């Protein structure tokens, strides 16, 4: 009966290897997920609660270039990973404040309240719900995007923070999740759809909905790049 015993051992070993493989697989997935997840931090320099907005500070996230914040400003920084260092320079001779923040895993975009962070009050982070505007509005034909868009040559990350623009305090601006450009809150514009990648608002992909062409039985296999 050593034959069946040997078979059992082989089967056992096989199952152990399989289980180990699955564990490695899951572990790797979790690892790259946590390590590589990109977040957008909206740095908010507004009065929040009992903490007043700071005046004229320069803030830098990780190793990105710093930006100037007047009271009521909001800017964003794109980062990768969970733990980040925020350096705040009050530009009045006092020492720079360094804080380490830990972003929640779930949220893609978080709102960081500068005053709260500086004062050390919790919670200074809150997940931000990006509103995607309705499809009916037309995409704004502004050529502003290409400027800050990455050139087609590979660039090292992290990318430097986008150029900051003077903005007036505006509550209702909905920043774009995909674009790198500072949202310019113009008055009266309700919601601006985030600058989309190349395709315009198309409700159906290219193939469907095309006029009934009897020869289009099979999807055209020779559509060259």
């Amino acid at each position, binding site marked *: 009966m050593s034959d069946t015993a040997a078979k059992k051992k082989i089967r056992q070993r096989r199952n152990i290897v399989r289980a180990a493989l699955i564990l490695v697989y899951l572990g790797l997935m979790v690892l790259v997920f946590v390590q590589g997840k990109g977040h957008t931090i909206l740095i908010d320099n507004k009065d929040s609660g009992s903490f007043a907005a700071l005046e004229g500070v320069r803030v830098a996230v990780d190793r990105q270039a710093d930006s100037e914040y007047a009271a009521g400003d909001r800017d964003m920084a794109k980062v990768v990973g969970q733990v980040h260092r925020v350096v705040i320079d009050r530009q009045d001779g006092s020492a720079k404040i360094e804080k380490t923040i830990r972003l929640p895993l779930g949220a893609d975009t978080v709102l960081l309240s500068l005053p709260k962070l500086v004062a050390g009050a919790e919670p200074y982070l809150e997940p931000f719900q990006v509103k995607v505007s309705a499809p009916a509005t037309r995409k704004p034909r502004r050529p502003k995007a290409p400027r800050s868009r990455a050139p087609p040559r590979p660039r090292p990350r992290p990318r430097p923070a986008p150029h900051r623009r003077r903005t007036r305090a505006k509550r209702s601006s909905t920043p774009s999740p995909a674009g790198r450009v500072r949202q310019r809150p113009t008055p009266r514009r309700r919601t601006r759809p985030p600058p989309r990648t190349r395709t315009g608002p198309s409700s159906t992909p290219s*193939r*469907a909905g095309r006029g*009934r062409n*009897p*020869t*289009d*039985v*099979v*999807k055209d296999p*020779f559509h060259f790049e």
Partner: protein
Amino acid sequence: MRSFKKMVEDFGWPRIIIFLFLVALFIGAPFVHVRMDSSLSDVINRFGQNAIFVLAMVPMIQSGCGLNFGLSIGVVAGLLGSTLSIEFGLTGLLGFFGAVLFSAPFAVLFGWAYGRLLNKVKGEEMTIAMYVGFAGVMFMCIMWLILPFTSPNMVWGYAGKGLRTTITVEGYWLKVLNDFLAVRIGKFFVFPTGEILFVALAAFLMSLFMRSKTGTALTAVGSNPDYARASGISVDKMRTVSVVLSTFLGAVGICVFEQSFGFIQLYTAPVNMPFAAVAAILIGGASVNKASMLNVVVGAFLFQGLLTMTPSVINAALQTDMSEVIRIMVSNGIILYALTRKTKVTK
């Protein structure tokens, strides 16, 4: 009961399923506000358009050359004929038959060369046929750009040379077959008598041919090459004959298609046509090495019926355009099914 079961088996489950599905679509059509008569008219029209292509599959299947994925070569010959017909300004039935006539020499020439090629690669015909077809179409694309056509209906406006992608046959021979003795019932139903008669005639001629000496020799070559050889039949010659015939029918088929559809489509359009015909004949019950007239008719009807009804009914029912996706899955699924069957012959 047993004979019924045998009948079902013979007919093949996929055919029955598709037939029932088609019937269901027809029944369901009025409920989603799709007109039955216009749908029926559409189906019959498309059946007529594509039947000759499906017929073109038969000779090569019978002679053992497999499914003619290289039908594009015949289509291209037909396109040459049609463009010549328009170039010479022929109209009406003369225009149509002129197109067929002009395509004939090209079809025979291309078919002969293609047949010679296939003879050298017995056993791997289908894949090679596909790529030869594609390469041929691409080569013709270059030709369409440089051949010296002059008719203002066909060349690009600006440059004055090089053919346009789609050329209308309106004013030349649009629907000349369709309208011949056409029966019109109400506003939406047109029965294209001429076209159906033409298809019937072609099928009849084909069945006569298959019963003739050459035809039986062809079938012998396909079903039992050694026996054929022993009887003194030249395998290669018969195969070449079948390829030439198939190519010629492809050319005729595209002419029939054009007069019904209304446009001559050049450049990369022919590339997709073989797949439709292959799917049709397979769903008609043919296998990779046996096909009959019944397969052609049933297959063309079921396939085109499916392709017409599914998008209109499902889109109307679901309010979304899934037609393309469904089309892809259905037509390729059918071919796949046939390719994976053990070669069991159905009537």
